[in-house]
């Protein structure tokens, strides 16, 4: 029951957050809604028994990415002629009726595509006897240093590269 309530709440949070992210007129608001959405997803992870994932979702996304986004929004708010004090011109850059119409039409098509995948999945009978929840942290930890050790290690290269890259890009040009 708790699980169900949690699922419903998380789902509502997720979907609501997602919807508002997509529809909000204010970028800052959208970003906050995204945060809500990500929280919701974390909740969903929890209902799936993916405790480690939920935690990681909270830490990395809520704590990292969204904050990064917010910084970026702030950083890009410096030019007054185009934008308001948050750097956000509410209407034009957040999309207009026209763009939403196009997006809506595209989404119908997208939905068709995805439904093509999902429809047979939906038809398959649901598994009734789900295993009980166990902590995945341990198992994941083992997996990460056994089966997926390389992925675990080599992603450092990715991160290192991303670090260097981000640094290179955002570093002001020397000598100026």
């Amino acid at each position, binding site marked *: 029951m708790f699980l169900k309530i949690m699922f419903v709440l998380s789902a509502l949070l997720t979907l609501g957050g997602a919807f508002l992210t997509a529809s909000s007129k204010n970028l800052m608001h959208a970003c906050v809604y995204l945060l809500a959405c990500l929280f919701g997803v974390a909740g969903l992870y929890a209902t799936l028994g993916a405790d480690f994932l939920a935690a990681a979702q909270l830490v990395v996304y809520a704590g990292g990415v969204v904050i990064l986004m917010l910084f970026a929004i702030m950083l890009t708010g410096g030019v007054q002629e185009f934008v308001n004090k948050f750097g956000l011109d509410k209407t034009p850059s957040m999309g207009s009726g026209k763009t939403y119409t196009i997006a809506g039409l595209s989404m119908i098509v997208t939905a068709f595509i995805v439904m093509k995948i999902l429809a047979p*999945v939906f038809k398959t009978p649901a598994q009734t006897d789900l295993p009980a929840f166990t902590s995945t942290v341990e198992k994941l930890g083992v997996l990460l240093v056994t*089966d*997926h050790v390389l*992925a675990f290690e080599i*992603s450092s*290269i*990715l991160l*290192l590269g991303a670090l*260097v890259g981000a640094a290179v890009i955002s570093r002001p040009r020397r000598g100026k």
Partner: protein
Amino acid sequence: MALNYLASISHYVPELILCLTMAGLILIESAYDRGVKGSAKGMMYWGAYLGLLCSFVYLFKALGTEPLQIFTRSIVIDSFGTLAKMIMVLGTAGAIFLGRQSLDIYEEVKSEFVILTIGVLIGGMLLVSANNMLLFYIGIETLSILSYVMASLKKNDERSSEAGLKYSLYGGVTAGLMLFGMSHIFGVLGTIQFTEIIPAMAALTKAQALVLMPAFLLFFVGIGYKIACVPFHMWSPDVYEGSPLPVTNFFSIVPKIAGIVAFVRVTNTFFGGDASIVRETWVVLLMIASALTMTVGNVAAIGQRSVKRMLAYSSISHAGVMMLGVLVIDDLGARAILFYAVTYLFMTLAAFFITSFVQDHYGNDHFERFNGLMKKHPLMSIVMVIVMFSLAGLPPLSGFVAKFNILAAVVSKKYYVLAVIAALNSVVSLYYYMKVVRLMVFKDAESDEPVKGFIFSNQVVITVIALPVLLLGVFWEKLIVIAGGAKIFLQ
């Protein structure tokens, strides 16, 4: 044979060397102040070359050994991948050499360029040898994320940063789509391990198999984007144009070859089994995609004013040709692709080298800048002529042999119409390649000013790069034997 943990490391030396190289380069880069940059530069480059050389040597040693899966089957080391890696290593070395020369990379980011290329190379090597979806994804992201940076490496240049922007946005979307597809594949097949897919698919009912198709399609978006296959190519002309020239050169070699080779592996993994209905449909899709890729790339290349952009488009069409090798889903195709990749590497390198020299000296790389190059720089022009004709697929140059191999692979499956389309495309491609030749040889120069940067060492390098283009057209047996020996490991 599958190895676990540390036992695997001895088979993973090339990548590790590169990782170390990258780390070392970062250290060198950060250790030196800008005052003593000069000597640090040399060190950086020599370090990079050394790392690449060691990697290459190890790869070479690994060539022809028994395929094995390492790191608990997450990586497969087979000759196919190894050869592809060697090609990529060479490509990276070439790109680094060009990056050092080029004025298109600002002096202060040259070291980062080197670091990033090696990073991308590692990503590419990962992609090439990935044996599960996770590493595949990590590989593709490593390739992509570092590429975004490279594309916008020309700071303060709005085109360059726009290129990076577009690249990253497009890459984000396609990565999302690919993951979405992957997740469903995972859901249906219950595994992320490539080697387990064939048995898992064999157990599927037809209905389930049909579920997979759209998911595969989404998966394909991710790879298709990486190899710039039509219709997921749209980012590439913009990015190629906006990026600095050495970066474009690099993009059209390493990520592309990595993508194609990974694509071969994936396709063979998924469809290498029985000739199910899934496979037939998939092949048809690929046929359309590859035919479109070739045609669009070629046709778009015709109207270009800039040689770089022309080469970018032509690289799209070459990707299309290589996809022909993918869709035959057998060893013949794999062999043809490897051969093609080798020749493509040399041809592209040489072409971009020369374009770079011209661009650096004359300010831009429009076709007119090539006017009368023959009189000013016979060697450069002759190399360019050879390369252009080779790209178009004229014997006795290696480009022809490569195309011949691809055609052979296609025809062996009796896809005659496709073969004809491919053949006709090479006629179209000849048109714009010939344009360069025509301008260089037939036209008079705008100015008698010679290209300054074309010093002796560059001449040597260009000659060395062009020689395989020439020689592989005649003495290609060795290479075809090697490529033919490089079998894909499936199970």
